[in-house]
């Protein structure tokens, strides 16, 4: 297990909290909560050690495309980058649908 922390400059504040996913094998849960901060802050607990760079790459790409401003909590049980991206974008879409 490893804990990771990231910050991203982001421009689109969210208004409601959102939760997606389950901490099942190869899956993860993503929680986004509204924030007053200027940057998105991510706290990640991952079951797979040694993938900090991969996380950074996945998040770079996500925030390039969807600069959501929120507090992120992520609990990951060995998801592939594709699944991580799926859950992040599902959360993004669910927020959009609520609006």
């Amino acid at each position: 297990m490893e804990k990771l922390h990231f910050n991203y400059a982001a421009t689109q504040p969210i208004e409601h909290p959102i939760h997606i996913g389950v901490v099942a094998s190869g899956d993860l849960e993503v929680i986004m909560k509204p924030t007053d901060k200027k940057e998105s802050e991510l706290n990640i607990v991952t079951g797979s050690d040694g993938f900090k760079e991969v996380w950074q790459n996945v998040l770079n790409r996500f925030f390039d495309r969807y600069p959501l401003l929120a507090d992120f909590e992520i609990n990951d049980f060995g998801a592939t980058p594709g699944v991580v991206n799926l859950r992040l974008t599902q959360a993004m879409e669910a927020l959009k649908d609520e609006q």
Partner: protein
Amino acid sequence: MSNSFVELHARQRAEALLDAGSTRELIGPFDNMISPHLEPQNIVPEADDGIVVMKGQLNQKDTVIIAIEGAFQGGGIGEVSGAKIVSALEHVLADNKAGHKEYPIIILDTGGVRLQEANYGLLSISEIHNMVIALKQYVPVIGLVPGRVGSFGGMSITNALLSYVIGTDKARIGLNGPEVIEQEAGVKEWDSSDKNLIWNTLGTKQRQATGIIDEVVDDDVNAFRTAITAAIDENKDSHRDQRGDFYLSLLDQLDPSQPLDIAGYDQLFKQVVAKPHHLAPATSGSQPGTKSRGRNWFELLTGIKNAQSDVPTVLHAQADGREYVAIVPAEDNRFPRVRHGEVGLQEGYTVASVINDLIAADADKPAAEKTPIVIVVDVPSQAYGYKEELIGIHMSLASAASAYARARQAGHKVVSFIPGDAVSGGFLAQGLQSNRLVALDDLDITIQAMSKASSARITQRTIAELEEATKHVPAMAYDIENYQKLGSLYNLIKGVKGYDSDDQAVATVKAALDDAFKSLEDAPADLSFRYTNDIAVNGEGGGRKATNKVRALMDQQW
């Protein structure tokens, strides 16, 4: 097919069952109520700790759904998840007592105790059992076992206690997983790689045919809604925890030395005629019985030398106005899997018959005059065997747990005295339904949810690694001193060991029991002592702090 219920996760399952727009989740993922025990053991937690509690309406009836997430840690029950279930059920009970009809539905998708929080899990599950039994007096408590995990371990006992259970053919129900039986009893007893055998034995089709589950429906959301509605409307209750006479009669006809296959069992099941079973109190014999700490203390406390009984593994007798019950080893016992003191098919049902007889005898007495019960706990485990699972050993354990809980709820004071081992399902049946636990401070006592060998295999560690990992973690420790740090014990008796028999030791224990019973005067008849005492609330070594946090938040959000 396309409206699958099984494919859904816990939260979606709750939402799918409840009427659209009626739902409200309690202690949800934004409440930050995660398990404090997982991260220190390098396990990734989940924000809802794998339990979804959701209020809402099902066909316009007020309903509370408690859904276990089978995909998170195998649906294992730990401290937070257990406390969420227990506190929700308590509120449902309170609401119903107050005249507000509210229907609890538990979605079981669980392997039982979460091994990383084993000691908390076992306590929580006994508390769930207590609540289910209490609630059934007011409303049917409906269980769903959709699969994939099914319902195993201590939660299979919950399964047996529920009023009415609905499943799909993607679920299995059993006390011990085949892997554990293979580990404990050898591959010839049960080959855990044999999926055909596993599904044919534990799958819901077989379970329905032999009364372990009530209804099997298609994997479809609407099929579940329809079946639940019918169960509620018709107030269905299969009284699965009170079939002792049937099963004891069945066991009378079984030759445990011969192999039993599914067809053979089905045939036996069909031809059994239930006859009443009552166990006479133990009497003094000429030959000593198989030595054990449980027998030692049963004999010391009742004054019966070489106690013997018609069921060699179950001793009970009254002394000093108290009822003493012990499960003991018997080296030549008819059932080979309980020769070392394990709780097997016969033991659970027999203990239940003893307690049920006592409840009936004292039914008309006021609570203060009902016979107090001392459970002498020395159970190395439940019985591990193929026949045990085929017949449904979890039902037997449920009968015992139910009997003790109903006795306590009826006003009998129940104290468990622990001079020996207190492990797993054996402990759930014989000990954990008491409202006081009193133990000897003896490091030879093993107290846990699973044997070391099985735990090592399931968590893919060596026994040495397991011991190292659990030594300093009360949530997982195997010794009584660490167990005390959880706050679950009323008293840890110093200076007396399991095989002591001197007068001073006996006097010390008797005094401790007297003290425990005295403390029960005017005390609640529930299990709340375990999480309200000082160690539980304030203890540095763990206690039940998270339990209390969950309870407070549930009170607030309910």
